[in-house]
Every structure is written in C-alpha cells, then in structure tokens.
C-alpha cells in the first residue's frame, strides 16, 4: 500500500513538473509571439492577447470567426491554396503574410503554422505563431521602391544626356573628316544647339541632385508677389507671351518663410509648365492664390490649359520624363524638381486636372 501511494505521489510530482514547464513555455510564447489556434476549417478557437492587440479585434469578435477575417487581399489565392495544401497534409508552413487590422491598416507577420496530428497522423487543429515584422517589411518595400526609382532616374538621365551627346560625337567626327573649310564652318555652327541642350540638361540634373543635400538650407521671408514677378521676368513672359493673363490673390497670406531658391524655382516651373501645356483653343489664364488652412500655408496654382487625364498620366506628372527635342524648355526635370524641393522642406504638392479644361496644383508648404 505504502509503496503504491509513494508511486502515485512520484507520478503526480512528475506530471506536475511537466505541466509547470508547459505552462512556462506557453507564457513565454504568449509574451513573445502572436498565437492563434484554429480548427481544420480555419475557424479560430483560441487567440492570445498579442493577437487581439495587433489585429485590434477583441477576443469575443475573433473566436468562432474564420481566419479570413484578417485577410488583407494582398496575396494571390494561390498563396493561401498552397498554405492549406501544406498544412492539411500535416506539414509545417512558414512565410510572411500581410494582414488587415480592424481599422483597415495593414500589418506584416512572419508566420509559422504547425498542424496538431491525431493518432492516425491527420491534423485536428492548427497553431499559428507569428511575429510582427511590419516595420522591417515596410522598410524593405520602401527600399525596393527607391531602387526602382533610382533605376528609372538613371535611364531617363542617360536618355536626356545621350541625345545631345550623340549629336556632338557625330558632328565632331564629321568636322574631323571634312577637308572643306566652308563645310567645316557649317558643321561647327551645328554644334551650338546640342552643346546648349547638354549644358542645360546637366544643370537641371545637378539642381535636382542638390535638393537632397541642402537640408539645412536657409529660410528667409519672401513675398509671393515678388516671387511671381521674378518668375515672370525670368521667363520673359511680358515679351514672349504677352497674351497670358495672370491673376493673383495673396491677401490672406502675403508672404512665407522659405528657401528663396526653392520658391523662385517652384513659381518658375509651375509657370513654364502652364505655358508649355496651354490650350491652342483659348487664351491662357492663370489664377494663383495663397491661403491658410489648419495652420499651414497653401498655394493654389490653376490654369485653363490642355489638362491631363489623371487616371492615365497622373502618376507621370511629377516624374522625370524623356524629353522631346523641339521643345527647348522641356528637359524633363521641371515638376520633378518642384516636388523634390517642396518635400525636402516637409511640404507636399498634388494636382487635379480635367482633360481639355485645365490643371490646378495644390501646394502645402509646411505643417506647423
């Protein structure tokens, strides 16, 4: 009797030890990972606090729901078919998933799903263990986006520089091969245009690259009216485009503390953009106004020009462009530079446009 009792006590102690250890492991897991259990249909049977926290759903809202509740629609159906195929066969599945929280925001989780198998080797439930990798994933995606942007930048810059450079190479070899001085003279005269185009393109390239470097650029008090007048003078509007009507209303906010180089450049680029894309059917009218909204200074710059189809071309508006040759003032950098300058000082720019009606640019200079 006695020995039987002591056996029982020993067994009990042994089991207690195992339970305690399991309990500790569960606590460790719950503290570090996002954990959920589902039945074989994917209906949620258990979630830990971390799951509720990241998904923003309460435990009551989640239990009994299908796991699809947090599906973000990001992954292809194939992705989840493969997941289910793997775990239904009793295998462990592991990959990164983008899920959607209750408020509609997205989060990324490094996920491992382990099937619990019955005596015959068939899964009867699944446990998913996840780690929040939203920050890393977003950095990764941003890096991919940036390197793509850089690649495009290289292709476009190379295109825009190569065009005049090619002409210069060919012209100089023609000059060298010619032994007629009259012909040489004519060929030399032909060098002027590509040399100037090359120079201007190069200057714009340098300007757009400098933006990222002068983050400490000095801000001074500037009058919108002066900047507009400077830009009109720089583009020689009065002489070259005497028919243009420019209306402005800077009464609400007459001036702004801003880098002078940038504000001059913003006015010049928007103005030359409006001139470049004016409609041949009507006289160009430009309306510019400044105002205060939610503590920030805004500038609205509207024209009645050609306008663009925002759905089709909107994404290209502020991008770099491969340039045309017979448009001497279009080197493809204009609005790209404008956007970079505005963003460098913490502001933003966007546009609304109707094809055939005109375009309006909205600039928020900086949030207070």
């Amino acid at each position, binding site marked *: 009797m006695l020995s039987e009792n002591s056996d029982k006590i020993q067994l009990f102690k042994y089991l207690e030890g195992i339970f305690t250890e399991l309990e500790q492991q569960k606590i460790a897991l719950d503290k570090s990972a996002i954990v959920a259990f589902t039945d074989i249909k994917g209906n949620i049977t258990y979630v830990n606090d971390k799951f509720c926290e990241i998904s923003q759903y309460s435990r009551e809202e989640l239990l009994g729901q299908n796991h699809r509740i947090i599906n973000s629609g990001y992954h292809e159906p194939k992705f989840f078919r493969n997941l289910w195929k793997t775990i239904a066969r009793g295998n462990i599945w592991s990959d990164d998933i983008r899920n959607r929280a209750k408020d509609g925001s997205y989060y990324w989780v490094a996920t491992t799903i382990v099937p619990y198998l019955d005596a015959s080797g068939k899964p009867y439930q699944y446990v998913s263990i996840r780690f929040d990798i939203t920050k890393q994933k977003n950095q990764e995606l941003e890096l991919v986006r940036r390197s793509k942007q850089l690649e495009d930048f290289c292709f476009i810059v*190379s*295109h*825009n520089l190569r065009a005049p450079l090619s*002409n210069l190479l060919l012209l100089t070899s*023609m000059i060298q091969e010619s032994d007629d001085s009259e012909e040489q003279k004519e060929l030399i005269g032909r060098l002027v245009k590509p040399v100037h185009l090359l120079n201007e393109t190069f200057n714009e390239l340098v300007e757009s690259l400098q933006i990222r470097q002068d983050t400490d650029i000095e801000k001074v008090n500037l009058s919108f009216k002066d900047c507009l007048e400077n830009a009109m003078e720089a583009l020689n509007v009065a002489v070259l485009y005497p028919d243009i009507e420019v209306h402005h209303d800077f009464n609400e906010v007459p001036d702004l503390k801003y880098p002078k180089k940038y504000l001059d450049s913003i006015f010049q680029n928007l103005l030359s953009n409006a001139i470049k894309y004016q409609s041949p059917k009507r006289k160009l009218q430009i309306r510019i106004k400044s105002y205060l909204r939610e503590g920030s200074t805004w500038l609205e710059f509207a024209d009645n020009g050609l306008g663009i189809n925002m759905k089709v071309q909107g994404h290209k508006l502020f991008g770099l462009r491969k340039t045309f*040759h017979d448009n001497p003032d279009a080197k493809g950098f204009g609005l790209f530079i404008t956007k970079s300058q505005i963003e460098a000082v913490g502001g933003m720019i966007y546009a609304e446009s109707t094809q055939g009606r005109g375009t309006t640019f909205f600039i928020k200079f900086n949030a207070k």
Partner: protein
Amino acid sequence: MPNDPMKTIDTLYLIDDDDTYQFIVQRTLNSLNLVNSIKLFSNGKAAIDFLEATLHDIEQIPDVILLDLTMPIMDGWQFLEQYLRFRPRIGKKVVIFVVSSSIDPRDMQRAKSISEVTDYIIKPLTKSKLISMLHESLES
C-alpha cells in the same frame, strides 16, 4: 558589301524630332549614295498621315524606316501601333529600325517583341552602323 553595287534603297523615312540628328543622318545618307529619296518627319503623326495618303503609290511607300521613340504629338510606339493597322494594305517589305537614346531594357524588349521591328539601335547612329543597316535592308 552589297552583292550588286548598283542596288539602292528607293525610299527611306527618317522619323525623329531632333533636327540636328536629322541633319546628320541626311548628310551621311547623301554621301553614301545608297538611298534615292529621304523623307523627313518630326513626329509619328506626320509620318503616318503621309503614309496613309500615299498607300496607293508603291513608289512612295518606304523600304526603310528609321524611327525615334520619344517624340511629341505621336511617339514611336504609337506610330508602330498605327503602322501595324496599315500593314495588310502595304504590298511591300518595309524594314523598320528603332533608333533611340534610351538604354532602358524595357524599351529594347518592347521593340524587339514587335515582329515588324528589325532591330533596336542605340544612338549615336554612326556612319558604319548606318551602312551595315542599309546593307542588311538591301539583302532582306
């Protein structure tokens, strides 16, 4: 070298908005005496309009087209799209070279995926490159 020294190209379209490039190519072609008639266009639309208006006249239809991609009004891609529509009505072999400053592999792949495009040439279009392109056209 051409098999037949007398063989020449009748009509060549030069479609490019860069007038310096137009000048250079035209001058080089004139010095080579391989092309009888050069037609200059500053954008795809001017070229396609002319082609459409002269479709009935086989003499006027080009044997070779040198086509730029980035042009105002109608670019090289749009030109090719329009050209493919006319293609069944053109009773003649037309050799098209895309000649561009773009080194973007997407442009090259896209051009090469169009069966009517014989080759993609990156500028500068040198004299020797031009000669080999014309010989290639004569042999085809």
